[in-house]
């Protein structure tokens, strides 16, 4: 009886030890998967990738640029594209900037009138690191205009070089 009791207790603790080892192994595998690699944070934590202040300010400036605004109001959208596209290209093609694409859409009274793109992108691309869209609304008499900027980034350092 005594031996049996000892064997029982020993077996219980051996099983408990094995379970603990398995749990520790699982934690180590999980920590290996999510481990921090040099230069990046886990997930979308790269701080500068979240706000896109340059892109927002650029969209503000485009919407306030009298020349561009007058072209849009005069419905000369192709001329507006000629004016807007180099601005977006210059910002997007800063050496090393890993933004995969920009779409700038012009809406008038809720209807999409023009799409200006630097690099055709697919909406909702599943493997894009980050997707952002900003829009600015301005009015001319009773007409409502909206400029919507949509961009996708390829990796964590989006927005920086």
């Amino acid at each position: 009886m005594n031996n049996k009791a000892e064997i029982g207790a020993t077996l219980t603790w051996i099983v408990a030890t094995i379970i603990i080892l398995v749990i520790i192994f699982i934690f180590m595998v999980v920590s290996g998967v999510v481990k921090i690699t040099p230069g990046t944070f886990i997930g979308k934590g790269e701080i500068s990738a979240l706000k896109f202040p340059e892109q927002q300010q650029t969209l503000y400036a485009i919407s306030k640029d009298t020349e561009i605004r007058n072209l849009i109001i005069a419905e000369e959208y192709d001329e507006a594209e000629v004016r807007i596209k180099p601005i977006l290209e210059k910002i997007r093609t800063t050496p090393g900037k890993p933004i995969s694409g920009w779409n700038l859409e012009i809406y008038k009274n809720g209807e999409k009138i023009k799409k200006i793109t630097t690099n055709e992108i697919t909406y909702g691309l599943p493997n894009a690191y980050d997707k952002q869209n900003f829009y600015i609304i301005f009015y001319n008499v009773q007409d409502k205009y909206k400029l919507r900027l949509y961009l996708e980034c390829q990796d964590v350092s989006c927005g920086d070089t």
Partner: protein
Amino acid sequence: MMNKKGDEKILIFYWIIILIIITIGIVAGVVHVFGSNLDIRKAEAGLLKEKLVDCLVDKGELNSRNYNSVNLLETCKINLNDNTAKYKGIPQYAINLNLDGSERNFGNSDLLNEALCNQENQPACISSIIYVLENNQGKFLAIKIAVRKTEKNE
């Protein structure tokens, strides 16, 4: 009584083994996750850039008063002094602003050497271009920032 004492001895033996295993597991996990070198200089430069953008550009328009301020860093509440023991007094940051060719430099501008930027054991650099309006004139404001601190990120 004897048997109970025997059981307790076995329990204590396993209890100590389990404590040791758990301790090793926790230590191994922490070392595994946090032991790798984490270089956050680009994030630091990104934060600096955001602070500058917020200070110099307001809804697409250049804040000329702030931009042309003699003490721009003070105006924008930016302190480039690294007061940690390792770098006390040695400049570790550089900022270059370029508004359509008109440049302003702050900090140690030697750090902005493009040949060295982002190389191994060299400063981490970022750059951005913003389209801004100044007196209703469209201009490009380029911002370059370098953070050294190489010794801390070898």
